[in-house]
Every structure is written in C-alpha cells, then in structure tokens.
C-alpha cells in the first residue's frame, strides 16, 4: 500500500471543506477502500477519515417526521441489530445482516456500502486496464462473466455489489449528499449510474461530494418486506442474485409493492414488470409463474451467466411465498 496523508476532520463542516479543497478519498470503515489501496487500484495522496467527525447526524438512526434517518457512518452491524429496522424496515435489516462477515459488518458503514466499488475480477486485478479503469476494453465480454450482469449492461457489465442499496431502492429511500455547506437529497434510483452514462463511476457523486446518510419513508402499517440473497457458499459471499420485496398486504392479498434486484445489473435494479405483477396475488390467487415471468424483462445474459435469469425468478417466487405467510 502506498502511503498517504490521513485527514482527520473533527466534524462534518471540516470534512466537507477538506473534500472541496483536496482530492482526498473518503474512508468509512475502509473494508473496501483498503482493498483498492492494497491492490493499487486507487492511489490517493490523501484519505479523509470520516469516522473522526463527531457529528451525531453521521452516527444515529432516528425516526422523525414519518421518515427514518440513518447516518452514513452507521455500521452494517448496527443496522442489523436495530429493532426499529427489524420491525418496520425488515428488508434493510435483513440486507445488512446478510452482507459480508461479522468482522466486516462491525467496521463497514452504510455510506461505504453504497459507495463501494464493483467486484468484477478484472476490475480488482491491477493487471487488467479495463474500461472502468480508463482502458478501452471490457474483458468480461469475451472472458469469464459468470458473475456479471444480465440487464442494463454495456459497455461495462459489472453488477452492483451492495446489499443495502437493493433494500433501500425497494423502500424508496433518498441519499443525502453533501458538498461544502449544502446538503441535497437524491432518490436512490438516481444515485447510481449506468455504464452507458459513464462506465468509470457507479454513483453520481462529483468532486467534493460525499454521503452523509439516507432517509427512508416510513412504510405503512400493512407493509411487509424481506431480503432474500443467494450465495454460492454459506460462509460469506456477495449476492450472486438477491431479491428485495416490499409489499402492502390486506386480508392476505397483495395490494401492491416493489421488487428490487441485486446481482443482475450494474446498478441496484428496480424491476417494473415484477412490481406491477404483484397486485392481487394471495389467497386462492397464486399467479406465481406470471409474477416470476414478468421479472427481468429484456434480459440479455452473457456467455456464462444465463443461469441468473431462472435463479432470480425462482428466488423471487420463494421470497414472495414466504412473505405472504409472514
């Protein structure tokens, strides 16, 4: 790892100022950033330790005005252990609990989870200068692409690795982005960037901008939600595919809902077809195959990842059946 200057702001104001002045990279838990530094994929002169900022805004989970505000430094372990989340924002609690390992959840922050870089093995290997790193080729197209995307790809074919982002997308969350003295809210669906827009970055964050937290609208009383993640091994793994399901249920019948998918696209994927097919299911009506078939419309699998389409559909069916009974 190359050495760097470690900036340690005392508060958000200093952090924002320092980020406007310097080309520093932000560090939360460092569980992803340290990997990028060790592998020489990022080599910043300066790293800004957001954890040194003492502001409560960054560290608390607060219910206010029909919204849940979560600070960007809240760890995945804290999200997974929170009773308010377990009760009303189950999909987010389950997504945080399903991510990484106990040690990484103790260190990894929500802000870092949303802003982590992709896991594409060509991207992570310093030997490959691919499109996302400023080169002119995507090695996954003719190479090994078992874990790459099936929708939304081109000219780069990563999948977005974050578990919590998929849950937050299904919940209709907003990301709080700060630059200098100003903070704005960005709907999470607009926070992530498709490679066709810019293959070199995953989020809209520009120079000096960083995430201070998220805001999640409070779900209704009849809302139920879940996060279902498929991994290749039980210990720990990124989602091969995952399904975040948020739906309103009355008398055992789904009134409406949202399906967001992980592991299928370069961004957390809001599945419009699947979401629309949810209403009316329940009771005698078990149009599960119609629901599953509506998912991933327009999917174009690569040479090695066709399996993701039926896997996602079956996983979503399972998620729906389980949630109907909750």
């Amino acid at each position, binding site marked *: *790892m*190359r*050495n*760097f*200057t*470690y*900036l*340690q*702001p*005392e508060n958000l104001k*200093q952090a924002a100022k*320092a980020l406007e*002045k*310097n080309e520093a990279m932000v560090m939360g838990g*460092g*569980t992803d950033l*340290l*990997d990028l*530094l*060790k592998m020489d994929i990022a080599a910043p002169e*300066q*790293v800004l*330790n957001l*954890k*040194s900022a003492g502001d409560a805004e960054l560290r608390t989970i607060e219910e206010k005005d029909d919204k849940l505000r979560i600070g960007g430094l809240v760890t995945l*372990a804290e999200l997974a252990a929170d009773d308010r989340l377990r009760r009303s924002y189950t999909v987010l609690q389950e997504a945080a609990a399903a991510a*990484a*390992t*106990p*040690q*990484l959840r*103790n*260190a990894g922050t929500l802000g870092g989870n949303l802003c982590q870089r992709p896991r594409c093995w060509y991207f992570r290997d310093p030997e490959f200068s691919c499109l996302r790193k400023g080169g002119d080729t995507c090695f996954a197209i003719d190479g090994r692409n078992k874990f790459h995307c099936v929708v939304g790809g081109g000219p780069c074919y990563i999948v977005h690795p974050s578990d919590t982002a998929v849950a937050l997308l299904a919940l209709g969350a907003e990301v709080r982005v700060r630059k200098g003295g100003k903070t704005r809210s960005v709907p999470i669906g607009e926070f992530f960037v498709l490679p066709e827009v810019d293959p070199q970055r995953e989020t809209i964050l520009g120079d000096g901008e960083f995430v201070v937290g998220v805001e999640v609208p409070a779900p209704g009383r009849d809302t139920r939600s879940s996060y279902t993640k498929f991994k290749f091994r*039980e*210990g*720990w793994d990124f989602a091969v595919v995952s399904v975040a399901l948020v739906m309103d249920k009355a008398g055992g019948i789904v009134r409406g809902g949202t399906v967001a998918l992980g592991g299928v696209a370069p961004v957390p994927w809001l599945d419009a077809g699947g979401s629309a097919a949810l209403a009316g299911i329940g009771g005698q009506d078990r149009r599960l195959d119609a629901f599953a078939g509506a998912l991933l419309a327009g999917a174009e699998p690569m040479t090695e990842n066709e399996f993701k389409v039926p896997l996602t559909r079956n996983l979503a069916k399972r998620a729906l059946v389980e949630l109907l009974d909750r």
Partner: protein
Amino acid sequence: MPTRDKPVDPGRRTFIKTLGVGVAGATAVGAMGPEADAEESPALPAGTQILDLTVNGKRHRLHVESRTTLAELLRDELGFTGTKVACNRGMCGTCTVLLDGLAVYSCHTLALDAHGKQVLTVEGLMKGEELHPLQQAFVDHDGLQCGYCTPGQVMAAEALLRENPEPSRADIEAGMAGNLCRCGAYPKIIESIESMKGGR
C-alpha cells in the same frame, strides 16, 4: 505457545526510537484545525501521525505511517505475533482482534483507526502461563489442526460469546462466518465453542 507473564514493552522502545525528540505533534492527533489541511499539519513527517492505543491493557504511544495496518503494528512494532495474517485482504479472519470489544480484521483496519481504543489480541486472553478457558476448550475439543487460523477463531469466538453467552448452533455458524479454516476443522471449532455455553 509462547506466553508472557508481564509483557515486555516493545512499544516503549519503538516510541523512543521513532519519536526521538519530543511529541510536538501529539496534541494534534485526531484533530484538523478549522483551516488546516494536510500540508499545514504540525511538525511530523507527512503521512505519519501519533497513535495512542491500549493493547491487552497496556498503553502505547507510537509514531506510525498512515498506511500501517493494525496487524502490521501489532506484529511488527509491538511483537504480538499471535495475530496471524493469511490473506491480508479482509477475507479469511486469521487476523481477528477485538477493537473496543468488537471483532475486526486487523489486516483490514488502519492502525490509526485504533487511536484512543482498546485492542485485545490472543495474547491478552491468557493469564500468565494459563490458557483462557476458551483456548483450553479448543485444546480439549481438538478445535484445530495446523493451528494457523486458531488465534483468529478464538478471538471471533470470544466476541461471539461476549455478545451471546448461550449461542445456538446457528448463532455459532453465523457468528463464525468470517473465519475460514483451510484444514476444515469446522465441526470441532463449533464443538469447542458449544462447550463454553454456560461455563463462563
């Protein structure tokens, strides 16, 4: 396993060696004045800071490069070689230590992020020459084969048991998911931890 009744204090030696002339910058650690940026930091070489931390109950003050990981600090500077490094990429768990009571991968934590905190390594579990009951449980139940992953397994198990003294088998599997064992001693590791239930 080498043990230390009263750990020597290599930290002090390092402190003297590396800090040399006084601690002019000490008060500035963790602080960045309102207008300060990197270049204006006090009289420390760029890319280094002073670190105060407590390891196994003993305070240390050192002068470290920003890029130093906690594992490097523990092993190379402070001589706590019980902490092992295998992957050095946050993927295997051999380097697990407790930071303010929480299990973390020391290879994937900056040493400077331990500033003002308590670090517990496997050496800190021992009482003199006496193994900690959890270590003894690993011995009694054959919770190891080559032993390379064991310090990390023990520290992860310690964190798990502190949080949940009566873990179910599923709790143990989930709590130990961040620790790989290339020898595949998993069933015996779980058995070792299960034997600790109610016995603390």
